[in-house]
């Protein structure tokens, strides 16, 4: 009669006889019932992301941009590199939706063609960063000790390198082009990802559920695949959504210095660079459209990244 004693101690109900206390019938089902809908980590994150209006707007813009990058050049009645000397530098009209450039090429078609290149650069660079960074950081974090120390020394040196200077140097050496840009961006880009993954793995590998797995004799590869990686995915995804815009930005920057995509191909960066020189003669559309879509892409990735950061953080769960 634990309860009774407590009451006695506090002198609240001294005269109630023991017989009055009847244990309540146990209702196993009710006790075990899950009141809140059971959500996996990803379902919960998705639910929270859906509530974030800004992030959803970013996601919507990105889907729209990707759609236009695929179908835009097909929708346009004009070919990407088709020149027409009779139609130089025309302002936007019903015939040329975004106007034409100094060779009479359709800016609408070129903008979406450029979108392909810019998005391709961003996504491929992010994927390479992901592949190298996860493997490198994963090994360093999981092995720990001396291996980790040695591997992180390399990362430290690379991290101290001025990123854009190295990219510029590599572009100078390899000659401008799509492959060069992606290569140059990947050489130093994976370092940030490796640091994040290593930090996460270092933390998670000491958690009880990993220890339990080890006790059961699970193979290392399976522990990495099933226990460590899924739990590091949150920060990794956030990092990737931030890598894509910075790669697109770097491409635009290189194109601006004349080290990017070379004609007849176009990217947003090279189009903006071409457009810059003509802005003072009033051909605003040549700078406006590529610059606008660079900014929109950066904006979308940034707000989506912020939203994902909040959504994937279990501490912010409500």
């Amino acid at each position, binding site marked *: 009669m634990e309860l009774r004693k407590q009451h006695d101690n506090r002198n609240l109900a001294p005269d109630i006889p023991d017989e009055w206390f009847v244990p309540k019938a146990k209702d196993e089902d009710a006790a075990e019932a899950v009141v809140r809908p059971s959500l996996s980590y990803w379902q919960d994150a998705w639910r929270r992301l859906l509530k974030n209006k800004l992030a959803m707007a970013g996601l919507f813009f990105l889907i729209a941009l990707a759609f236009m990058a695929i179908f835009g050049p097909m929708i346009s009645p004009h070919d990407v590199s088709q020149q027409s000397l009779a139609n130089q530098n025309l302002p936007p009209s019903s015939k040329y939706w975004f106007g034409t450039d100094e060779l009479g090429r359709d800016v609408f078609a070129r903008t979406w063609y450029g979108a392909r290149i810019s998005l391709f650069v961003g996504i491929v660079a992010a994927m390479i960063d992901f592949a190298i960074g996860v493997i490198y950081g994963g090994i360093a974090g999981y092995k720990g000790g001396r291996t980790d120390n040695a591997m992180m020394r390399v990362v430290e040196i690379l991290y101290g*390198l001025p990123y854009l200077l190295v990219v510029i140097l590599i572009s100078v050496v390899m000659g401008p082009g799509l492959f060069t840009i992606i290569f140059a961006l990947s050489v130093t880009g994976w370092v940030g990802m490796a640091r994040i993954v290593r930090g996460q793995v270092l933390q998670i590998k000491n958690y009880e559920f990993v220890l339990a797995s080890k006790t059961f004799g699970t193979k290392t590869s399976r522990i990495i695949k099933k226990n460590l990686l899924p739990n590091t995915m949150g920060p990794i995804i956030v990092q990737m959504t931030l890598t894509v815009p910075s790669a697109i930005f770097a491409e635009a*920057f290189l194109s601006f210095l004349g080290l990017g995509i070379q004609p007849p191909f176009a990217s947003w960066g090279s189009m903006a660079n071409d457009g810059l020189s003509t*802005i003072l003669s009033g051909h605003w559309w040549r700078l406006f459209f590529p610059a606008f879509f660079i900014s929109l892409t950066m904006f979308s990735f940034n707000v989506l990244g912020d939203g994902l950061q909040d959504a994937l953080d279990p501490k912010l769960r409500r």
Partner: protein
Amino acid sequence: MTGYIIKRLIAMVVTLWFIITLTFFLMHSIPGSPFNEERNTSEAVQRNMEKFYHLDEPLYVQYGMYLKSVATFDFGPSIKKSSQTVNEMLGRGFPVSFELGIVTLIVAVFSGIALGIIAALRHNGFIDYLAMTIAVLGISVPNFVLATLLIQQLAVNLAILPVATWSSPKHMILPTLALATGPMAIIARLTRSSMLEVLTQDYIKTAKAKGLSPVKIVFKHALRNALLPVVTVLGSLAASILTGTFVIEKIFAIPGMGKYFVESINTRDYPVIMGTTVFYSSILIIMLFLVDIAYGVLDPRIKLHKKEAS
């Protein structure tokens, strides 16, 4: 602390050496020689020129000479502009670039922190949304686009500010604005989020309970802790401002180091490329080093040598 500084100094030298070596071998793996364009020079003249710049020596000898010249801060003569040495170019360009960079950094840091504090104090209010909209736009718009827009609107259409060059304080406004907006946005966002976190802490409640004025709470108690994340990004921000100066100097025709760097890339002027790269990198690495030290001084909780060990 001393042990940590020594360790960091060694790491710094290794990184610098790495950059110097990387730059050297990358430059020398470029196909073609800097004299390729001058087709009408006879073979003998070309050989003499190569001899003058030691381009005829084996690579490891050139590498050794290069390390020696870097150690003595003498980057030798330019190949394309034979009357000038790289040191002269740096001496002329650096003060201008430095001025642009420092003014930009100061503007970005102060306006960014101010914007962040205001946004955090008016959390979820109109001012907060306005400040964060400005910040996201600042991150999203590339600086060369912003620079062009500023020139077109303020310098050409309204004609209240000069279009280009670098001679009076009035000339500095547009380049600084174009270059500072991105870093300012990053600082504003960081300050806001860390400020929001700090403001919920118990010691702030204590300060409020003691009846301290809001100004004192914000500036004396909250800000000091909220600024730590800002200090950590200062190093990489300085890097982005530095590389940003290439573009801004090109657009505004500012006679800084970026101009020589971009020119030397296009003309394959090896000594100038290597000299400017090494110079830029040294500045950056020293900045990162100083930021790390400052971080340790600002936050007594951080035991630097322990951080190094983990």
